[in-house]
């Protein structure tokens, strides 16, 4: 099954709710290519759901803001005329209809012939592996099954755009991961333009062609997962996506000097007195190493052991040590950093709160 898809453009879309002192969304521009999956990522209250609802047509932007689906200006159209499919956080399945009736609802609105509806519903039930549950009542379904019904219902009327509002938040961690993979495959196969809202960075990384990091009603950064992770535009993004270490020191003779030792700059690096790096950028060197730290705590997490090293910089340095090595608290260990960290653009250090 392949769906048509359109590009989406938001032009200077702001949103102030009546009676509110400040806008929940500052004027915002956003371009989404046809068939792309874009994830809106940010802490709660940062405007990502409002952005989704503006695209859906459930909210109208403040005067001056415009929403385009392809060349068509849909700003004035309500959701029922935008031909979008939407999956809500709590799924919003119709409780008095069974699975089949829920999936068929959008088609029956369109007054399609019954055979055609039945065929299309069967196709979607097969796609979402719900065949066996077609006659079940919604109350009899598990969380994961409900999520799939909501997806099937949204896809049934062949939407031009698929909008998902934290569709996995209501589920268990274990289930979330498996449904994430499943949904990723499905979205890629459908090729529909998708906007996905989440506060979970792992979900954003796994699903998004592009991630839009938002905070306090504004976009902080737009980029591929790799861009966002390795080249965060500012401290807000850096701290929201994964874990980021900060090492401050003194630049002297082509090296960064800090409490933990002397780190020679990578070839071609600019002089720097502060480095930002990820826990996995740390290369542990059993013998020697440029920097040294003392293990404050070591937590075995399966694939890796999370170490917290003190005595390197001002704050403890978090390290993800691969392999099966055991680390003892108080142990002194040596490490160096991957050369790439010298080329990580320096995010501005001012931290804005959401």
């Amino acid at each position: 099954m392949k769906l048509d898809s359109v590009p989406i453009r938001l032009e200077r879309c702001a949103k102030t709710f009546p009676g509110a002192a400040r806008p929940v969304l500052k004027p915002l521009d956003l371009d989404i290519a046809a068939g792309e999956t874009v994830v809106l990522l940010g802490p709660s209250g940062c405007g990502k759901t409002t952005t989704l609802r503006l695209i859906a047509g459930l909210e109208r932007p403040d005067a001056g803001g415009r929403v385009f689906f392809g060349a068509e200006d849909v700003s004035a159209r309500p959701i029922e005329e935008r031909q979008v499919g939407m999956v809500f956080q709590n799924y919003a399945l119709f409780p008095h209809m069974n699975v089949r009736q829920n999936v068929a609802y959008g088609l029956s609105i369109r007054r399609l012939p019954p055979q055609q509806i039945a065929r299309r519903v069967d196709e979607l039930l097969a796609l979402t592996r719900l065949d066996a549950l077609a006659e079940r009542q919604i109350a009899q379904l598990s969380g994961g099954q409900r999520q799939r019904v909501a997806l099937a219902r949204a896809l049934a009327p062949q939407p031009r755009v698929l909008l998902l509002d934290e569709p996995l938040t209501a589920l268990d961690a274990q289930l979330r991961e498996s449904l994430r993979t499943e949904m990723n495959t499905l979205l890629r196969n459908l090729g529909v333009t998708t906007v996905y809202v989440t506060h979970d960075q792992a979900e954003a990384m796994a699903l998004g062609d592009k991630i839009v990091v938002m905070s306090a009603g504004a976009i902080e950064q737009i980029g591929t997962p790799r861009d966002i992770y390795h080249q965060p535009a500012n401290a807000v993004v850096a701290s929201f996506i994964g874990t980021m270490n900060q090492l401050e020191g003194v630049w002297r003779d082509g090296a960064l000097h800090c409490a933990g030792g002397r780190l020679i700059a990578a070839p071609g690096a600019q002089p720097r007195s502060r480095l930002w790096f990820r826990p996995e950028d740390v290369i542990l060197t059993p013998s020697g190493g440029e920097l040294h730290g003392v293990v404050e705590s070591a937590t075995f997490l399966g694939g890796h052991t999370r170490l917290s090293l003190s005595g390197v910089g001002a704050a403890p340095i978090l390290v993800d040590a691969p392999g099966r090595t055991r680390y003892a608290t108080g142990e002194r260990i040596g490490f160096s950093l991957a050369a790439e960290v010298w080329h990580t653009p320096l995010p501005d250090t001012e931290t804005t709160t959401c």
Partner: protein
Amino acid sequence: MNDLTLPRHWRAALLAPALTVFLAFWLLPMSRLAAISVSAGGAGYRALITNPRYLESLLSTVILSALVTAVALALALVAGLALVRHAFPGRRTLIAMLTLPLAFPGVVVGFMVIMLAGRQGLIGAISRELTGHNTVFAYSMAGLFLGYLYFSIPRVILTLMAAAEKLDPALEEAARSLGASPWRIQRDVVLPALRPALLAAGAMCFATAMGAFGTAFTLATEIDVLPMAIYSEFTLNANLVVAASLSLVLGAVTWLVLALAGLGGGGNVAAAA
């Protein structure tokens, strides 16, 4: 699940009064009523079938109650949904005023109906001015209907508003995203979701109308509603057997409606009690 909450003797202590009250005061009067109704060889029930006055009374009470229920539900549904959905200045005041009749008993409501549609009523005065004819309907079925409605609507509105407030707005948004028109959303999403509340409110409204006495008595209406028939058989005619039979029939009809709406067995009582 709660099997450790209270020691065993506490539990017994809690259940005992309930059972005592129940046995002493609940079953006794009702079984006495039943006993009287079948005394005299079932003459009471025979009279009910043979005497057209009783049948008429039963029929008109049921029809009146059904009508009041239907109209109260319809009006309260429209008004209740509008009040829950739309924030407008004076909304709280309007709700407070709509529920004002809660404070007035049936007698006073009957009194008000007379002032509105009685011989010296407002409507009569207006119609005299306009048409020269004094419109009086307080003592007819219409007056009773008006009084019952006045009495019922606040109760029904409160129940429906409580239910409408609990509706998940995402359900309507989902229907809209699938292309449903406002009309279809009402039919396919809102009404099914309000069904339990409508049933519960309707059943309570019907039961109240079936048993309303104060309004009918004050209006001294020519329609002999069942509670009045019972009262006059019992007090004026001292015809205990017929009064008991009529009471049981009234109880049975009401109970049936309550049970059909799921209120009887304590099923879905939250919205209506």
